[in-house]
């Protein structure tokens, strides 16, 4: 049996990239917060945590690039220009592709923003 109806499933693709951003953000925040809260006897150093989070960032970015590629394909590799406002199934798909591509772009940038602290901050101190 299906929990999510099929026609909604394809709407989810719109949210893939922002969801990756959200997961990346949560992983970064939760890891750092738990690490610093439990800093009494850390099993690994802050440096190691930063490196691990950098790796997570790379994974997230590649996920977003992948989703962007799929969106680009759905958008027909940029063959048609917006506004995609014809009352056809094709234009609806192109619109979804384009909107998904834009969101992937925003998510990519937002992941990079969230990774900036990893470059500058070297300890748990408040």
């Amino acid at each position, binding site marked *: 049996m*299906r*929990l999510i*109806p099929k*026609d*909604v499933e*394809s*709407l989810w693709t*719109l*949210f893939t990239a*922002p*969801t990756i*951003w*959200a997961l990346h*953000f949560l992983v*970064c*925040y939760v890891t*750092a*917060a*738990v690490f*610093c*809260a*439990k800093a*009494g006897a850390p099993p690994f150093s802050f440096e190691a945590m930063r490196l691990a989070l950098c790796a997570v960032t790379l994974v997230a970015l590649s996920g977003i690039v992948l989703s962007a590629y799929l969106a680009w394909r759905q958008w027909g590799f940029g063959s048609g220009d*917006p*506004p*995609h*406002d014809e*009352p056809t*199934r094709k*234009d*609806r798909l*192109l*619109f*979804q592709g*384009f*909107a998904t591509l*834009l*969101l992937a772009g*925003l*998510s990519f*940038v*937002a992941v990079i*923003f*969230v*990774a*900036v*602290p990893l470059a*500058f*901050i070297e*300890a*748990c*101190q*408040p």
Partner: protein
Amino acid sequence: MTGTVETELSADARKAQEAELREVWRTPSGWCYWTSVNNTEIGLWYGAAAFIFMLFAGVLALLVRVQLAVPGNDFLSADMFNQAFTLHGTVMMFLFAVPIFEAVAIFLLPSMLGARELPFPRLSAFGFWSFALGGVFVCGSIFFGAAPNTGWFMYPPLATDKEYSGIGADIWLLGLSFIEVASIAAAVELIVGIMKCRAPGMRINMMPLFAWYLLIVAGMILFAFPPLIAGDILFEMERMFDWPFFDAARGGDPLLWQHLFWIFGHPEVYIIFLPAIALMAMIVPTFSQRPIVGYSWIVLAAVGTGFLSFGLWVHHMFTTGLPQISLAFFSAASEAVAIPTGVQIFVFIATMLAGRVIFSVPMLFGAGGLAIFIIGGLTGVMVALVPFDWQAHDTYFIVAHLHYVLIGGMLFPIVAGIYYYYPLLDARKLSDRLGKIAFWLMFVGFNVAFFPMHLAGLRGMPRRVFTYPADIGWDWFNLISTIGAFIFASGVALVVIDVLRPKHRQPKGEQNPWNSGTLEWISEPEEKWGVRSIPIIRSRYPIWDQRGLIEDIKAGRFYLPDAKDGARETLVTSVLDAEPIQCLRVGGTSLLTILAAFSLGGVFIALTFHWWITTIVCASATLAAIVAWLWTGTAVIPREEMRDVGLGKTLPLYTSGPGSVGWWAMFITMAGDGTAYASLMFGYFFYWTIHEDFTAGHAGPGVLWPFTAAGLFTLAWAAMLVAQWVNEADWRGLTRLALAVAVLLTLAACCAGLAGPYLTGMDPTVHVYPAIVWVVALWTVVHGGVGIIMQLYCLARNLAGRMSARHDMDLRNVVLYWHFLVITAITSFGVLGLFPGLR
């Protein structure tokens, strides 16, 4: 479009159809007027109530400003001042900013989407009455000197100190929880409405931008409000029963409340801001006389903002001493959210540049609002940077910033919306002259009032002070601010006068006075049916692009031009391509919704005063009203299976499972419910992170009983699956048996769930560990209790012959509830049983 119409009805037949429709959609007269559930009435009442609350909170703000006009003033006592600013913030946020958008959405969306109604009109009515009652309760408290006085953010331990906060904190917690229920109800209604009730042909690339925004905002409500409800539960448990969630002496932590409050509080800002921008997205194209440039960009901005806004909450907590690395993550997300916001502003500017702008009063308010909002956005970028926030936090700089954002980004667009949409109410425009005067009063008054606050804040003036010393350099700033506040208020008063002044001497205007392109302008103020017939949409701006659309709609040449069976009907369409799939019968005028809302209000009010018996009586009445409402008004088996909706199309009248709107509503409600649950579990793990040993040596619930409970809940869930399966096979007796077994299993599961903490003697008042274990167990068991009610309801429906193999909507919705419940139960009892041993 007339090509698809085969036969033209005679004028008489058309008149007969109109009479039918008019009768079905008639608003009751006399006292019964208030039992109406029609979206135009509910929207109007909702909006009017929210506006009245806004004026009330505005008066409070003026009192605050008078007190601060000169140093050392004693116009208000310290305590009255504290009540006034707390209530000002609370009312503006909870009783104006969020509800006004729900009001606008309920009023506009059906006609904008080409629907007759939203799918659950009675739910809208229930939401409105809950809101009105809760609002009066919260606002009224100040006349008894019993208003909340701890700031709208209610930080414990100040707000858990009964000696200081008195009954005010309970009024805040319970009154607002009640209103939050109404907001979530509205969110469910709007999501289902936007996804499932659009006119045929209105694919998702055709949706009006307002609907896109509202869809995102309703989704945000669903994930933002539940954490606050979870926080409210913890808070009220501490105040009522002394469970020490926020009491540091017994292992609690005041910061948990701050997290839960701001996980709600920051998305809230965007929940307020996006709908106002959505109004702008309707107004700007009209007055630029062209379609919006960058439709997809707006969708990007709305969705992007919706997501990013959940990664900002700690920027309200930059000074709480969290590690710099945590602060920096949130600072980064707070900067990133400026990008989609900038996109929206530039989309409007680009649309204006590419069009031929007519600069009317709505545009004046819109553009003025943008100019103000941009300052708020820029100061927002500033305070989102951690170092600057360390200085600016909790000073008047923030007061200035948030008012620039909310008044520029929300109030000005709302007034623009009032001037723009007023003809939909009355077929007349508001006065251009008064509008322009009001605008300049508001614009100048606003800047005079709030700009100096930036400087006062930087020069060290903290927020929430009831007075200040004379020789510290803030006198002039404050005096100017107070003068500005009164100029601003006079502008708002002028808007109110313009709306309320009698206009019967002014002739009624045309239906679409601004020559807009979107569908809401087809609705006629005198007719309650929404649209005469449900059109086929082929454009983002159908009135501009589809020739003869209005005449065809009015002539009933589209879907559902009649109301043969005397029922209120609208179309359900598919999510992406809006193909018609069902003819939905929606609830009509009813007293039950008012009864349900008022008895639920009784529960919350009685709890505030600890009247336990009244609470129980009201709770029973609520349950009875809701069951009666569901029993008589939902999942009704139609006399005929199919309905000829016109244009040669025949659609089913009854669907169940994922095809039905009820299933969607359950899914969405449970997503919100799951978020509240996740917030409670966040609390559990939060205590684990802050303590070396979060059990503090207290015995846990053991492993045996939690596992028994989880196992029994799983069996009950399996029994529900069996019930659904045998019901589909039309074995009535077996269905009853399966349901009865499920009831017994659930009952046993609930007992086992409570047995763990009870038998190990966990005392929730001693330490936070037993308290959080009890809360998680109780949450799950209460959901089990609701599950039992649902099972019994299905059993009764089956016995009463209101459910069959084909008509199994109730059962399927309940099984969906059980999917969520079994996940909750396994998580709860798995964590309670195993985690203390694992860590």
